[in-house]
């Protein structure tokens, strides 16, 4: 009487096998999607929900519906527009020189140098330095009364600059921290891309009498265009989310204001101030979404521009 049993059992096993075959790949990738759902998608949706309510951080369960009220408050507040302009201006004065310097640095690092490894490591050191250590140094460097930079200016016969007090001076100082931190990182990205360019092109260019500068312009840059677009996108996103560097620069508990006049308050700092110092969770969520939309908008613009450039 084993025969009637056997087909059922093997059919069940077969079904289980097919089922297992179908489900296994999904379970392999499940950890990512479970984590993404818990730590990516859920916060995004929850933030969107909060942004439509009047809600305080100390009372997250007491929601009262305001629709787009928080967005309206933000778009009519001078602090928001000031922070937006600051974010853009700091972004431009930090990202442009940063990427140009990184490109030049990568180009140099690509040549046979004595102690090449040492130079490459050295260029990555700022990126690896902890924010706390950098904070100590930059507060010291840009201090008005006891600072390294003002001391150097003084020895050149120039008056002391109140780095934190002024709008341009504070934004320059913050940009300097950003440039210091990220140039080496971008240079290494460029270097990796440059090393994928066939060496023969350089040799051919050299045979044709191209100088190093011409090699950079006509061999290197066309060869790593996708990487350049990538770093531009990444530094744009980084600029819009800029938070750590201005906080480091300000130091102390008042730093979230980005100076007494908000002269170097970025959107990231304003978000933190709104949500954590002022405890207004609803409006901070709305601000987070506005920043998210801004990033998408800029990324789309860049994609369109990049496609146009490629077609040409």
């Amino acid at each position, binding site marked *: 009487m084993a025969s009637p049993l056997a087909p059922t059992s093997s059919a069940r096993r077969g079904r289980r096998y097919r089922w297992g075959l179908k489900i296994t790949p999904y379970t392999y990738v499940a950890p990512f999607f479970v984590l993404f759902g818990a730590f990516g998608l859920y916060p995004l949706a929850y933030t969107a929900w909060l942004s439509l309510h009047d809600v305080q951080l100390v009372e997250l369960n007491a929601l009262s519906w305001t629709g787009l009220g928080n967005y309206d408050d933000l778009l009519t507040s001078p602090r928001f527009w000031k922070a937006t302009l600051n974010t853009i201006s700091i972004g431009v004065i930090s990202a442009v020189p940063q990427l140009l310097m990184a490109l030049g640095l990568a180009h140099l690092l690509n040549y046979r140098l004595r102690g090449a490894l040492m130079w490459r490591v050295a260029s990555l050191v700022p990126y690896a330095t902890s924010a706390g250590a950098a904070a100590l140094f930059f507060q010291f460097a840009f201090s008005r*009364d006891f600072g390294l930079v003002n001391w150097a200016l003084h020895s050149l016969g120039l008056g002391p600059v109140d780095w934190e007090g002024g709008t341009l001076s504070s934004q320059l100082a913050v940009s300097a921290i950003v440039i210091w931190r990220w140039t080496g990182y971008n240079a290494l990205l460029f270097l990796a891309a440059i090393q994928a360019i066939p060496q023969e092109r350089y040799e051919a260019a050299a045979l044709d009498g191209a100088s190093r500068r011409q090699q950079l312009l006509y061999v290197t840059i066309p060869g790593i265009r996708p990487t350049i677009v990538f770093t531009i996108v990444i530094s744009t996103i980084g600029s819009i989310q800029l938070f750590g560097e201005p906080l480091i620069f300000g130091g102390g508990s008042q730093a979230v204001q980005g100076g007494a006049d908000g002269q170097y308050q970025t959107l990231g700092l304003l978000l933190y101030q709104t949500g954590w110092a002022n405890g207004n969770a609803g409006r901070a969520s709305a601000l987070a979404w506005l920043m998210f939309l801004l990033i998408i908008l800029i990324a789309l613009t860049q994609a369109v521009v990049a496609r146009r450039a490629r077609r040409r």
Partner: protein
Amino acid sequence: MNPGGALRVTTTVASALALAVATTSCDSSDGPASGRVTIRISTFSNMGFNTSGLFEEYERLHPGITIEEDNAADEATYWQALQPKLSSGQGLGDIVSVEVGRIRTIAGSKAGMFADLSQAPGVRADSFYPWKWDQAEAEDGRVLGLGTDIGPMAVCYRKDLFRQAGLPTQRDAVGDLWAAGWERYVDVGERFQKQTEDKSLRFMDTGNGLYNAMIFGQTTSYYDSSGKLVHDSNPGVRRAYDLAARANASGMTARLQQFQTNWRKSFSAAKFATVVCPSWMLGQISQAAGPGGEGQWDIARAPAPANWGGSFLTVPENSEVRGEAEKLAAWLTDPAQQAKTFADASAGNFPSSRTAAAGPSVAGTRSRYFSDAPVGRIFGAAAKDMPTLNIGPDQGLITNAISSGLTRVEQQGMNPDESWRQSLGEVESAIGKD
């Protein structure tokens, strides 16, 4: 056939689950079940309990009790981390320290979450300054916080800088200079700037400390007795702002932001002559000015009594060891312990217990660093005549916004009226709760 198929599915699911569980659960606390009681207390900056050895002493007196302190470096950071815990009611620990600027949030919308400490064993209401006791009282009459310290104010000054400007150096004579009011203090500043030989010297660190002294020396500043916001219509607030702005615009300030690195460094460089100092600032001044400043600094009385800062201990209702936590909170704020905290010079926290303040060990305290000044007597006198200030939930936010306005006048040369209007706008957008 692939008998391993199903098994593989289970292990993958299991590992995914394990990962998810591992990332979410991180709660393991010693309950009373383990035979020992662990009391978790969260504090900020230097509240003096640890440095004066009170935790060790309590553990010695009560075998089986372990105290775990979770300390945050500054109050702003501390409060930022505390807010979500207050929202969920989870992870608050057993004793939560609360600064006076936040106590109305605790005793207001969060009152249901905290235990009534007026009935805790060993607590005597009449040993505290009455105004301090009342600050932590909820609407239903429960008292949710026991006062640790208060911040009565005086004026710390450098004798050598006063001498070279031809001003008196004796602490009583210096106090007489501005006995008529804070306006006189700024007048003396003008005299100082005129008479000082070294023109790089400044009379005070910043006018923002002066602003605090005036705001915290009134019965009504930002909130009236019914709890209504009056910060923009109360003439007392505007008077404090105007005087501080006058000092900030006049060049008699060193243009420093209090508690920042620059401010601390300036003490050792001796670039300014006075700082309006609550008692808890003495420890910071002596550390910042270093051994070189010993005997140079002295303390004169302020023209009017005022209280800046000070904290409370609260016990969440849902603490697993609530009874023990209440006992510890009561013991830490007992007059005897408050006197010990004051004696610890690194904190210099003045007692919120009037019994402790009147006791010989506090009243008779002199500070060697500050030219042997009778700190117990000076701050005790200021604390005794303290007006009861109506405080509200957004006390700290409003002070912040108006202080920024003063800093704009001081560091960016903004017009005081314009800066005032900007501050009012910032208060509105910061509170934005209606």
